[in-house]
C-alpha cells in the first residue's frame, strides 16, 4: 500500500480537536484529581485529620492549669497535636502515597504523558496544604470552643503560619520515604518514623513529663525544633521552658534546624527519585 509522504512535523488533528488548557489548567486538574481520590477514601481523611483532633480531645482537653506567664497548658497542647498532625500528613501524603503510586504503575503511565514531573509533586503539595489547613483549623476550633483556649488574634494567625511552614519543611522527609522505601514496606516504615518522633519530641506528652534521657535527646530531632517554634509562638519563651523543661534556643536556631531538615531530606528524595527513574529505564 502506498502512502503519501508528508511532513511529520505537521500535526494531524481530528476535526473535533481543540487546544487543551494552559499549564495552570493542568495543575488545577491534577490537584482536583488528588482531592477527589483522597476524599473518596474516608479512612485517609480520618487518619490524617481526625486522629490529631481525637488525641487532643483525650489528652489535651483533659489537662488543665496555666504556666507562669498565664498561658494555658491546653493552648500549648493544641500546638503539640497540630504539629503531630502535620508531621503525619507529611509522612503519609508525600511518603506512603507516592510509594503507592510507584507500586501501582500509575506513575509509570503518567511518565509517558507530556505532563512535567513538577505538576505531579505540586498536586501532592496542594493536597497536603489543604489537609494541613483543615487539621489546624479544626484543632483551633476544638481548643477554643471545647477547651476554652483564648489567644489574641495575632497569636492565632502567627501560630497558623508557623505550623504550616513547619509542616512544609517536613515534606521532603515524606518524599524521601516515598522514594526510598519499598512500596509494600512504606506504611510500616512511616509508622515507625512518625510515632516515635512525635512522642520523643513531646507532641503527645509535654517533654517535662518524660524521662530525662528523652529531654536530652530531643534537641537532636528536627520535629522537636518544630515544636519549640510553635510553642514559643503560642506562649512566651518562659511558658515553653516550663512546658518542655528544655530550651528553647533562639528562634533562628530552631528555624535553621527545620531548613536543614528540608534540604537534607530534599537531597535524599531527589536521589531516590533519580534512582527510581533510572531503575525504571534500565
Amino acid at each position, binding site marked *: *500500500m502506498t*502512502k*503519501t*509522504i*508528508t*511532513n*511529520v*512535523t505537521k*500535526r*494531524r*488533528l*481530528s476535526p*473535533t*480537536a*481543540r*487546544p*487543551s*488548557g494552559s499549564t495552570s*489548567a*493542568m495543575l*488545577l*486538574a*491534577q490537584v*482536583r*484529581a488528588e482531592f*477527589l*481520590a483522597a476524599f*473518596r*477514601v474516608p479512612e485517609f481523611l480520618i487518619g490524617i485529620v481526625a486522629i490529631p483532633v481525637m488525641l487532643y480531645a483525650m489528652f489535651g482537653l483533659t489537662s488543665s492549669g496555666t504556666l507562669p506567664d498565664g498561658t494555658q497548658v491546653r493552648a500549648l497542647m493544641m500546638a503539640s497535636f497540630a504539629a503531630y498532625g502535620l508531621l503525619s500528613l507529611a509522612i503519609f501524603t508525600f511518603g506512603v502515597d507516592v510509594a503507592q503510586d510507584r507500586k*501501582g*504503575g*500509575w506513575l*509509570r*503511565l*503518567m*511518565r*509517558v*504523558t*507530556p*505532563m*512535567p514531573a513538577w505538576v505531579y509533586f505540586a498536586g501532592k503539595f496542594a493536597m497536603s496544604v489543604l489537609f494541613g489547613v483543615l487539621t489546624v483549623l479544626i484543632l483551633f476550633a476544638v481548643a477554643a470552643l471545647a477547651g476554652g483556649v483564648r489567644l489574641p488574634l495575632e497569636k492565632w494567625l502567627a501560630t497558623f503560619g508557623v505550623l504550616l511552614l513547619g509542616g512544609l519543611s517536613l515534606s521532603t522527609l515524606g518524599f524521601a520515604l516515598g522514594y526510598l522505601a519499598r512500596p509494600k514496606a512504606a506504611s510500616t516504615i512511616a509508622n515507625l518514623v512518625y510515632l516515635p518522633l512525635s512522642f520523643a519530641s513531646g507532641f503527645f506528652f509535654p517533654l517535662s513529663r518524660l524521662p530525662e534521657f528523652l529531654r536530652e535527646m530531643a534537641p537532636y530531632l528536627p520535629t522537636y525544633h518544630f515544636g519549640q517554634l510553635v510553642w514559643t509562638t503560642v506562649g512566651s519563651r518562659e511558658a515553653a521552658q516550663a512546658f518542655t523543661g528544655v530550651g528553647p534556643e533562639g528562634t533562628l536556631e530552631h528555624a535553621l534546624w527545620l531548613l536543614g531538615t528540608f534540604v537534607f531530606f530534599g537531597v535524599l528524595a531527589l536521589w531516590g527519585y533519580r534512582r527510581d527513574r533510572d531503575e*525504571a*529505564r*534500565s
Partner: protein
Amino acid sequence: MNVIEMQGVSKRYGKLEALRGVSLEVGAGEVVAFLGPNGAGKTTAISIMLGQKLPDSGTVRLFGHRPDLREARGRVGVMLQEPGLPQSLTVEEIVELFASYYPYRLPTGEVLQRADLLEKRRAQVSQLSGGQKQRLYFALAVVGDPDLIFLDEPTVAMDVEARRAFWEQVRGFAALGKTILFSTHYLEEADANADRVIVLHEGRVLQSGTPAQIKRLVAAKTVRLRTDAPLEQLEALPGAGRLERENGHVLVYSNEPEAFLGELVRRGYSMSDLTVKDTDLEAAFVSLTGKLEA
C-alpha cells in the same frame, strides 16, 4: 524524516538479550503490527520508543525528537499493559485529567463514545470489568488526539466481540491519518488491521512486509489430524503448506484450512482427532528462522 526512526537498538536485561540491533522506520499514517511470540522483544521495543527505557546502544527518534521530550510526548498516545489507575476516580475524571496533560484534546464525550464507555462515565475504576478497563486505557491513549498511538497487546483481555469493536475504533483513528503501532501475537490480528507487519523474534527483526507477504512465510492455521493419506498426497492438496509429523498425527500449516480439508474429504481419505487452531507463532518462527539462516 519518519514518525518513528529506530537505529541499531540493543537492550539487555542481565543475561537476557531482549533486543539485538533493531532498526526500523515507520512513516506518517502507517498502521504497523509488531508480531512475535511472548519474549520476542515487542514490549521492550515499545518501551524504548516511548523513552520509558533507555537502550544500551542505538538511537530512537519520534517526529525527529528524543522520545522523552515534551515535543514528542505531546503527540504520542499510549496503551500499556496493566498500568494501574487510581481506583477511586471515575472514568470521566481520569479522562479529563489526561486531556489536561496534552497540548490538544478531544471532547470527553466523544472519547467516551469512541471507547464505548458513555454508560460507565460516572463509575469508579474499581467498579469496571477487565474489558471496560482496557477500553478506558484506550480512551486515555486517544484523548490527547495524538499523531502516533502505541498499543501494547491491546486486545489481550477482550473477547471476540470486544476485539471486533476495538479494531473498528482503531481504524477510525487510522482513517484520520494517524500513525499506529501495535503489538500482537496473533497473525490474524496483524493481517486484518495492519498495512505492514514487522516480525520480531528473539530480539531481532525477522521480516518486515505487507500482511500478504508475511502470510506466505507463516501460515495462519495449524490443522492437526490422523489420516490414512500418505504425506506426499497431503502435500499436493490445495491449501496445504508445510507438513510435520507429531506422534501419529500430521500437522499441516495452512492459510486455507477449509479448502485443504474439503479436498481431503472428497478424495475419501479417513480423518480422526481433527483440530484446527491458530498457528503457534513460536513454533512457526523457529522454522522460519531455520529457513532464513539455511
